[in-house]
């Protein structure tokens, strides 16, 4: 053993091994810190992104009496202002919208033909009836939302006699009532509901069998606005 001097092969390899372990430890520490920062930024995006919605209902084909004509239509324009306070870049991937109009003739008993299909919203002692007017398939905008910024996603939904005759007939009846009783076809209240999905850039969907349940859909941010009536 007296031959084993500091310059012997074992000591040399041992020094190299310690240096290698040190380098790997530094790399792993950096990767861990980067992973932690990446994970935190995703969770911050998940928690802090919010949507400011605004809905506009516009009619075409309103006659001088305020009634909706047969060739008229209704268009709901949904404007979602997506505010992204996080450091992640987002994309709006899917917007689902449904709009209900308050069935005033059904509520007052003037036309009870839709009562069975209406959604009843009980508020205290009173009941409000809503007719589902527009509920198209989800739209797929690809609007980018910058990090620490905001962007608008505007989606317009139209309905006329050709696209949905039964709903259009109900709309005519309800807007007629609104025009004659409330003074304007647009006076009937609407209930808007929307579900906006945003994807976080740079986060692949987790498909690993060992992936935690918590993160299976963490690459997606879902924001619901309004009340879905059932």
């Amino acid at each position, binding site marked *: *053993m007296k*031959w*084993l001097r500091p310059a*012997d*092969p*074992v000591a040399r*390899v*041992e020094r190299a*091994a*310690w240096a*290698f*372990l040190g380098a*790997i*430890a530094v790399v*792993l*520490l950096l*990767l*861990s810190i*980067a*992973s*932690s920062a*990446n*994970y*935190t930024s*995703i*969770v*911050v995006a998940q*928690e*802090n992104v919010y949507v400011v919605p605004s809905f506009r209902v516009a009619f075409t084909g309103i006659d001088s009496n305020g009634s909706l004509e047969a060739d008229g239509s209704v268009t709901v324009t949904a404007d979602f202002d997506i505010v992204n306070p996080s450091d992640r870049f987002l994309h709006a991937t899917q917007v689902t919208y449904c709009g209900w109009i308050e069935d005033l003739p059904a509520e007052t008993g003037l036309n009870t033909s839709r009562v069975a299909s209406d959604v009843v919203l009980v508020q205290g002692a009173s009941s409000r009836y809503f007719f589902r007017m527009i509920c198209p398939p989800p739209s797929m905008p690809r609007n980018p939302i910058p990090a620490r910024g905001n962007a608008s996603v505007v989606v317009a939904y139209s309905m006329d006699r050709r696209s949905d005759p039964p709903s259009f007939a109900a709309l005519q009846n309800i807007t007629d009532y609104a025009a004659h009783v409330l003074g304007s076809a647009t006076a009937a209240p609407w209930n808007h509901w929307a579900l906006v999905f945003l994807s976080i850039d*740079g*986060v*692949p*969907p*987790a*498909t*690993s069998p*060992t*992936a*935690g*349940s*918590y*993160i299976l859909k*963490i*690459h997606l941010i879902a924001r619901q606005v309004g009340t879905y009536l059932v």
Partner: protein
Amino acid sequence: MSDLRRVLHRIARSVALAAFLGLVAGYSAFYAVYPNMTVPSAGEASFGYLLILLFVTSVPAGFVTSNVQDGVVQVFLSIPFSIAVASVLSVSPIFIGVGAQADVLVYDVIHNGFFIFLLALFMDVIGGSVGLSFRERLIVRASARPPRVR
């Protein structure tokens, strides 16, 4: 006094190596459970990457271990380190006040990463043995070589 110093040095080395092995295993478990959060990120954790990482780190760790007894101690001592590293990584958003419940996240990473913790133990034993045997072989070879005459 020198005996005490030697023992303390041995303990410090074992703790340092256990912490290192724990860091590797903890990072690997986090990567397996949160593959799309980790750097580098992927949809699915690469088993090959984990195997290579665990083996490549356990061999030099075994080499610098002076004996089998210390090697076994540091492998088992690395378990709490690995759980601590994986847990701290999984609850890291909570440190800035966002995220889900810490207990759920810690449970998730330990439950779903259990296989990786076991794999890390296994690889530490295998890689450590390889490193240790390499060290022994090198010592035997160095001992057999005649001294250089200057």
